[in-house]
């Protein structure tokens, strides 16, 4: 197996504002199954970062263990990555963020990694409003260990082995809302037009941003009985709102009709425009979001889109009042109180 991609670049490949071609955002060749939803999400991440003019090395990509958690190898080759242990990406991301508040933290996880073994860490990363984008590549099963039901598998869905899942699935969007996450969205790996803008909006958001992406496992969970299969998702998707991400510098208002748009200013000054569906959707109302979600669930629909955002939320650093400089950039002079102070402190112990 080869991990080395041909480095040849077309000279006329278009570059973005920071001078990178789209291929500069790619990773090594994926070893996932052909057609795996996770690969589409990797593609959306590449697209979003390229379009957002992010310098790739300013991104730190982190993951747990699983097919999904392998993907950071398949995007953003110029970013440092941390493939941690199963279910523990959130704590590693928390520490990384504590050390350097200036990077963009992109965490990728699976539904097994997040909703089973990682549930505790997931909940607490939300509670701390850690400034990161947390993408769950949600296929309702454990891909890498050969297709066992995960905790997000819906009750009644049938796995490849023919067994019917008897337990209620956990809705990560519902949980995140209940826990007060400041950016909560859901999308579908096959829907780049929705997913790419959501990723962009989430990357601009200051605070914890969850995108729960339904991402069918073609090998183990793409049979008609499964509610996380392509066909099922395609049939049951209910888009909440279309979202157009507009960077501050170059606002476009053309494509959105007056009256059907809510502009939400994100923390970095950029604006997310939401094209609402009939019900006049305002993603800034958490209680309404919870109700809307329950309603869709009751109707058997999967709500996608930006369900909730609180652009005013305080991230962990604001809460714990840490220095504005990245802590990892501080030097001895900044940190070590020195011998004289120590002599003074000794005195307090006599």
């Amino acid at each position: 197996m080869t991990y080395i991609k041909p480095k040849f670049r077309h000279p006329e490949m278009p570059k973005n504002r920071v001078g990178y071609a789209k291929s500069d955002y790619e990773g090594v060749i994926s070893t996932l199954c052909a057609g795996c939803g996770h690969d589409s999400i990797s593609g959306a991440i590449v697209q979003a970062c390229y379009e957002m003019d992010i310098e790739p090395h300013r991104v730190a990509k982190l993951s747990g263990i699983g097919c999904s958690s392998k993907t950071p190898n398949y995007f953003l080759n110029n970013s440092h990555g941390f493939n941690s242990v199963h279910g523990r990406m959130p704590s590693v991301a928390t520490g990384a963020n504590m050390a350097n508040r200036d990077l963009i933290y992109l965490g990728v996880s699976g539904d097994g990694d997040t909703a089973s073994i990682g549930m505790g860490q997931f909940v607490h990363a939300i509670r701390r409003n850690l400034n990161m984008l947390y993408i769950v590549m949600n296929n309702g099963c454990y891909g890498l260990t050969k297709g066992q039901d995960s905790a997000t598998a819906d009750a009644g869905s049938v796995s490849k082995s023919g067994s019917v899942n008897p337990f209620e699935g956990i809705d990560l969007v519902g949980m995140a809302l209940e826990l007060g996450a400041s950016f909560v969205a859901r999308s579908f790996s096959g829907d780049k037009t929705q997913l790419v803008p959501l990723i962009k909006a989430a990357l601009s958001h200051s605070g914890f941003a969850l995108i729960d992406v339904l991402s069918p496992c073609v090998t183990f969970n793409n049979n008609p009985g499964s509610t996380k299969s392509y066909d099922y998702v395609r049939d049951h998707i209910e888009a909440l709102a279309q979202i157009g991400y507009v960077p501050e510098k170059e606002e476009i208002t053309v494509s959105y009709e007056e009256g059907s748009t809510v502009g939400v200013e994100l923390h970095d000054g950029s604006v997310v425009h939401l094209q609402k569906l009939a019900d006049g959707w305002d993603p800034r109302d958490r209680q309404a979001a919870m109700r809307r979600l329950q309603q869709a669930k009751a109707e058997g629909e999967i709500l996608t889109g930006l369900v909730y955002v609180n652009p005013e939320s305080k991230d962990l650093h604001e809460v714990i009042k840490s220095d504005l400089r990245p802590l990892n950039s501080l030097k001895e002079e900044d940190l070590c109180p020195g011998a004289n102070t120590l002599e003074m402190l000794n005195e307090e112990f006599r």
Partner: protein
Amino acid sequence: MQQLTAINDLVVRFANVNGTGSASANNMFAMSIFRMGIPVTAKNIFPSNIQGLPTWYEVRVSEKGYLGRREGVDLLVCVNPQSMKQDIASVKSGGYFIYDNTKNLHKDFIREDINYIGIPMIGICMRLYQDARQRQLFKNMIYVGALAALLDIELEVVKGIIADEFKKKPKLIEPNVQAMMEGVKYVQENYESPLGLRVERRDLVGDSIVIDGNTACGLGAVYAGATVAGWYPITPSTSLVEAFAKYANRLRTDPETGLKKVAIVQAEDELAALGMVLGASWNGARAFTATSGPGVSLMNEFLGLAYFAEIPAVLVDVQRGGPSTGMPTRTQQSDLLLAAYASHGDTKHVLLIPSTPTECFNFMADAFDLAERLQTPVIVMTDLDLGMNDHLSAPLKWDDSRRYDRGKVYTAQDLDALSAMGKQFGRYLDVDGDGIPYRTLPATHPTKGSFFTRGTSHDEYARYTEDGVKNAEVLNRLLKKWDTAKDITPKPEFYQTANQSNIGVVFFGTTTYAALEALDLLKQEEDIVIDAMRATAFPFHESVEQFIEAHDQVFVIEQNRDAQFRTLLINELEINPKKLIKILNYDGMPITAEAIRRQIVGVLATV
């Protein structure tokens, strides 16, 4: 009746109810003796609950400077009827029993061979104070005063300590002094004082300080430049992180903005605490966590990741009584084996083992240097006795010319230079032949030096590989790194310039206090000379092996059941186990010199 007499050589034990503020009064008592220039040490023997259960506080005064626990109580201050029976039984024949004689003592509590000194503590309090809380707190000061009079403690010193204690609430100084003086007065009026058992001013403590190991570790982490701490509360390590937070907040907060050059997060559990440390270390900050046994058990998986992915991490294990939840408020040295080989697969971890608060401070600074130099977890092994009890210690020192060793980290310039030379960056390449590769930090360079940190098998370029031979090469390099560690970790301490005996003894950590005293006793009273070595780190420096080689018989003293340190010695140094004789204590109380001496004499007698 016999009355114990001694000057500056006594053990006073306080029997209190926890949650009554007694610990701080007892501490004032100990500090008074310290300020009179006499070596003193204190042990707080507290229950694993919050209020209402028996708690003891034991103060040893030793002109000779012996700072370990000593068996036998010379004077017992009984403020807890719950435990009175066993307290009375614990007093040495001829010793003193201070009790509250507001009510009469039942005859079951009368021993013929000890001296009873009644102080009507409650009576005085009832007379002087209205408020229940006041009565409680001032009762403590009354017995402090009584003791001062009985033991001849200088009252000015006690008053000075009260003044310091209430510096921030000066209104409380006067009433506390008064309460204390009530105790003094009662003794002076009712007893012949001082006793034959008493203290006398000396000049034996020099510039020493009195500090607990957790505070010293916390301060050490501040001086070492730690900026990130993730932690989870657990006795007896909680106060370590609290000390770190206190001093970091005090010394690193911008007075104008209120912003802090530190990030401390209480994690949801110990798994997360160590995860935070790894994330932060990976990102180039100095980060640490502190916990005790149960936390270390939970940290296994992440420790294995850190070992294999070669991520610096500093972890302090303030050991308590195991196994399982065990004895949370008692001391042991029983996590050694777990810490040394934590996690599945072939792993070995660097341990530093301080034995005094001063060394706690120093080893914390070293731990961060070593973790970054070696790119691996460094575990500082202390224990409840060291961490939570006050110890007479050399003052903390910092050399302003000392520079943090940030280890092998390529900068953007380095990466450019490397490619200018046509070389490729390899995260796990053994460039220098010492087993330590170079790392890069996130965001170092726009196009060079990025890699995917992983706990899966990898080659020298951090690429995933299922080629087992390549992976074995990585495992072998880790052994080379392990060899490198042997030379840069703290060296053992020897207590003789040249070996004088064919018998040796090895000890470490808080056992040191008792071990040194035991060696004196053996020499003075049994005419047995034993060469001594104090171990301070794992892996072992070659001098550890040499010391053991140089002796026919080596006692290994440790505070656990399974002689875990001895296991490390035989396993890592290929020593014949027959040569290493176990001297153990694992009842949760700090080992005593008498216990060591008894066991050594016993072994030597049977040979």
